[in-house]
C-alpha cells in the first residue's frame, strides 16, 4: 500500500553518536517537554507509580512515564478520561506519558486473536471483550498520551510455530494501517509502530521494512522480554536498528535490567520501559551498581550505611546533604510492613535507572561509551569470568571486547 505521510508531534535532536558502538545520544522533544535519550521510562500501569506522588516521581528526575491503555480503559474507563480531560489531568502529571497497548491481553490464556482484534474474557467480571486497533487508538486518544502505541499481535518469542509467527507479524502491519487511519490527533500524539517477528531475523527484517515505510514518528521493537535467550534478543535488536532511519527514536519494549539497558544502547536502542525496578522495590530489592541487594536479608538489619554509597537520590543522600539518610537497616525494618518502605526503595530504584541513563548519555556525548561499558561491568562483577556471555558477545559485535582492557 502507499504510505500516507504522517504528521509528527515530536522532533528527534541527535546530539552524538558513539564512534565505535551504535549508541546514540539525543534530545526528544515531545508535547509535554523535552526528554533525554537514551531513556528509561518507569511504568505507572494504572496511572500511579507504586505509591509515589507525581511530585516525587518528578523529583527523581522522571519526565516520561508509562501508563497502560488496557488498564486505564477498564479503570477509570474512557468516559471518565473524557470527562476529566485525559490522563495528564487525571493523575496531575505535567510531563510526558507513553501508553503501551494491550500486551497483557495476549498473556491471558483465553485470548483469541482474529483479524478483527483480540477477543478475551474480562479478568474483572468475565464478560467477553473485543479489542480492535480502532478501539485501542480511540482509548489512547482519550488518554491523550504523548506517545501512543499501535495494537499488535504479540505471541511469545519462544513459540516454535513459524506460520503463526509470520501471521502475527503480517497482521501487526495490517493493524498499524488501521491504527494510522483511526488516529484522530497525529499533530499532538505520536503513534509508534511495533516491529514483530519473534526471533526470526528474516521476519524481523521484513517487518521492519514494512513498518519503516509507514513513517510513524517513532519505532518500537516489540515481542521481546518474554523469556527468550539474551543472545537471540541482542540479535533481534541489532538487526532491527541496522535497518531503522537515524532520525527517529527507537523503543525496545519491556526491557529494564541495567545490563540489558547498557548493551541495548550499544546496539542502537534509545528508549526502554520495565516494571521490574519498581515492582521489585516492594520486596526490598535495591538496585545498585554492584547488583541487586535484597534488603530483607537479615544481614542488612544492622547495616547502617546508605542503600547505595554515593547515590544522590533523596533516600540515600545524608541529612547533611539535604537528603533523608535512609539506611539499609531502616529499609529492612519497614519493607513489607509499611507501604512507605516500598515508596522509599521505589524512589531509589527509579533514580538508579534514570541516573544510569544519564551517565550513559554523558559518556556517548563525550565519545567514551566503550569505557563506560567496561566500567559498568567491572563494577557489577568482581571478575571478568563472571561477565555474561551474551553481553560479551553482543558488545563484541559492535566493536567492544569487554574481556580485553
Amino acid at each position: 500500500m502507499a504510505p500516507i505521510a504522517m504528521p509528527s508531534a515530536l522532533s528527534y535532536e541527535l546530539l552524538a553518536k558513539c564512534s565505535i558502538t551504535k549508541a546514540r545520544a539525543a534530545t526528544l522533544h515531545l508535547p509535554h517537554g523535552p526528554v533525554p535519550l537514551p531513556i528509561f521510562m518507569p511504568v505507572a500501569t494504572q496511572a500511579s507509580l507504586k505509591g509515589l506522588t507525581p511530585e516525587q516521581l518528578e523529583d527523581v528526575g522522571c519526565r516520561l512515564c508509562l501508563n497502560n491503555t488496557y488498564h486505564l480503559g477498564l479503570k477509570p474507563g474512557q468516559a471518565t478520561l473524557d470527562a476529566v480531560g485525559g490522563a495528564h489531568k487525571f493523575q496531575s502529571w505535567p510531563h510526558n506519558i507513553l501508553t503501551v497497548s494491550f500486551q497483557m491481553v495476549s498473556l491471558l490464556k483465553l485470548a483469541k486473536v482474529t483479524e478483527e482484534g483480540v477477543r478475551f474474557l474480562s479478568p474483572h467480571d468475565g464478560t467477553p471483550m473485543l479489542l480492535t486497533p480502532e478501539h485501542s487508538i480511540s482509548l489512547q486518544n482519550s488518554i491523550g498520551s504523548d506517545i501512543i502505541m499501535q495494537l499488535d499481535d504479540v505471541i511469545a518469542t519462544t513459540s516454535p510455530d513459524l506460520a503463526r509467527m509470520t501471521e502475527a507479524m503480517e497482521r501487526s502491519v495490517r493493524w498499524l494501517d488501521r491504527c494510522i487511519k483511526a488516529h484522530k490527533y497525529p499533530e499532538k500524539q505520536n503513534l509508534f509502530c511495533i516491529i514483530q517477528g519473534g526471533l526470526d531475523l528474516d521476519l524481523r527484517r521484513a517487518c521492519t521494512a514494512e513498518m519503516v515505510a509507514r513513517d510513524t514518528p517513532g519505532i518500537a521493537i516489540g515481542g521481546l522480554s518474554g523469556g527468550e535467550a539474551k543472545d537471540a534478543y541482542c540479535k533481534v535488536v541489532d538487526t532491527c536498528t541496522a535497518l531503522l532511519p537515524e532520525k527517529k527514536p527507537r523503543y525496545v519494549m519491556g526491557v529494564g535490567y541495567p545490563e540489558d539497558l547498557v548493551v541495548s544502547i550499544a546496539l542502537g536502542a534509545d528508549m526502554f520501559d520495565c516494571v521490574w525496578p519498581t515492582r521489585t522495590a516492594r520486596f526490598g530489592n535495591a538496585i545498585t551498581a554492584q547488583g541487586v541487594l535484597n534488603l530483607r536479608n537479615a544481614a542488612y538489619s544492622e547495616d547502617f550505611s546508605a542503600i547505595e554509597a554515593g547515590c544522590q537520590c533523596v533516600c540515600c543522600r545524608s541529612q547533611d546533604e539535604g537528603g533523608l539518610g535512609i539506611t539499609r537497616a531502616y529499609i529492612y525494618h519497614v519493607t513489607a510492613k509499611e507501604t512507605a518502605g516500598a515508596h522509599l526503595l521505589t524512589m531509589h530504584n527509579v533514580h538508579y535507572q534514570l541516573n544510569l541513563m544519564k551517565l550513559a548519555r554523558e559518556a556517548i556525548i563525550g565519545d567514551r561509551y566503550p569505557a563506560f561499558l567496561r566500567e559498568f561491568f567491572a563494577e557489577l562483577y568482581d571478575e571478568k569470568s563472571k561477565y555474561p556471555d551474551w553481553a560479551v558477545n553482543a558488545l563484541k559485535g559492535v566493536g567492544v571486547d569487554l574481556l580485553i582492557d
Partner: protein
Amino acid sequence: MTDESTPSHLSQLPPEMLDFTILKRTTTLAPRLGRLSLSSRKTILTPGFLGNTSRGIVPHVSQDNFPKTGINGVYIALEDFVEKHPQKTPPIFQIEASDPLRRFIALPHDSLIVLGARRQPPIPSAATNTNSEIGILTSVGFRTISSEYYAAAARKLQPDIVVGLADIPFGQETIGSRRKDKMSDRTETWTRDIIAKRNTIEKGTPRYNVFAPILPIEKELQSWYLEHLLDDMVDKISGVAIYDSHLLDQLPEELQPLPRLSFDNPTSPQALLRQVGLGMDLFTVPFVTEATDAGIALEFTFPAPQKTNGAERRSLGIDMWQNEHSESVIPLTEGCKCYACTKHHRAYIQHLLGAKEMLGWVLIQLHNHEILSAFFAGIRNSIETNNFEQDVAAFEVFYEPKLPEKTGSGPRVRGYQFQAQEHGKSTKKNPKAYKPLSAPLNVFHGHQPNSKPEVKEVIDDEALVGLVGIENIGRTEQLERLRIEDDHS
C-alpha cells in the same frame, strides 16, 4: 500548630527541659489552652496531637512527604523496634551516633519524639505482665521487656519524652481489686525506675523528660502510687499519660500544671471533644489512620458549619470507594489546603483505591492529617473565645456520631495490627492460610472486617503481586510467585 513566639524563659532552661505553659484555664474539668515547648523542637500548641507512628513513620507517609502533614511531634512505640530481643540486641541499639532513633527513622530535627512501650492503641499481649516485665507485641510475636530494659532503651534512644511503663492488663474485661493493687505497686516501681535511670545520664548528654502514667482504675485503688508520685516524684516528671479520661476529675492538685497525654484513645471527633472538655491536652488519634486505611476522607470542621433547619446530620467522612466519585473533579474537601486537595481530585483518588494503588492511601492520609490539624486549631480558637461548650453542642447536632462504616478493603493488614480476637476469626475464615510453626504474626494476610466480597474478588496486577489484598497465601509462597513475576517482566 507551630507558635512562632518562643517563651522568653525557655532559653534559661537546660536544653532538654520541657516547658509547658498553660495559656488559658478556667476551672478543673474544663478545656484549657497550653504550649508545649522544648528548645530546638517545634512548639506544640494544646489541645493538639502527635503523629501516631508505626515502625517509625506515620503510615503511608514516607519521610520526604512527612513535612506535608504539618505534624510537629510524633508518638513512637518501642515494641516496633525490638523484635530481635531477647535473642539478639535489636539493631536500633547498635547505632553509634547521637540521637539514634531520630536518625534511624529519618525524622526532622525539629520534630518532638514521645516514646512509649506500646503502640496506640495497644493490642493485648499474650505475654502477661510480671513484677518486673510487661508483655508487648512485636512484628514477630509476643515478647516481654523488663522495666530495666525499657529505661535503658530510653536512655540509649534519646527521645524528648518517655512515657513510663504502666501495668495494665489490656484486653481483660474485669480486673479484681487485688490485681488493681498490684497494678498500682508495679507502676510506681517502674516510674521510679525510669526516673532513676534518667538521673544516671551524664551532664551534657540530652536527658529525656518523663510522663508518668495514670492508671485506668479508681483513684482510691492507685492512691499509694499517686501519693508517692506527689511526695517523691512530682518535680522529676514533666507530664502525665492518662489511660482513662474520667480520672481527670480526680487528678491531684499538684499534677494539674502538667501536660496531659491521652492514652484513652478517642474513637471519634466527638469523643475527642469530650476529652478536651475535661482538660486533656495531647492526643495520638489512631482513628485518623484507621479512616485512611478504610478509604475514608475525613470531612469535619470545628466549629461545625451553620446548620440549616431540617437538614440531616452530615457524615464525618467521605467513603472514597464509592463509584459516585469516579468522575468528580473536585477536591476531597473544597478549600482544603492539603497536598491531596491542592493537587488531585476525587476521581483520581477513587480510581487509586479501586486499583489498589498505594498512592490512594498516601493522599487520603495527608488530607486526614490536615483535617485533624485544622480541627485542633478550631478547638483552640473556640476555647480562646469562650465558645467551646456551645461549639461542641453544635458539632454534635451537625455531624453523625460515628465515622462512616468502611466498605472497601484496606491495605493488607499487617500482623501486628490484628486485634487478638480478630486474629482467631480471620484464620478460621481463611482456612487455606498457612499457619507457620513459629507463628510470626505478620504472615497472616487477612482481610479487615466488613470488606465487600466484590471488592475482595477484584483481580488486577496490584492485587496479584502487591502489598495489598493478598489472601490465603503464606509468605514463602507469596515471595516465590513474586520472583517469577519479577523475572518475566
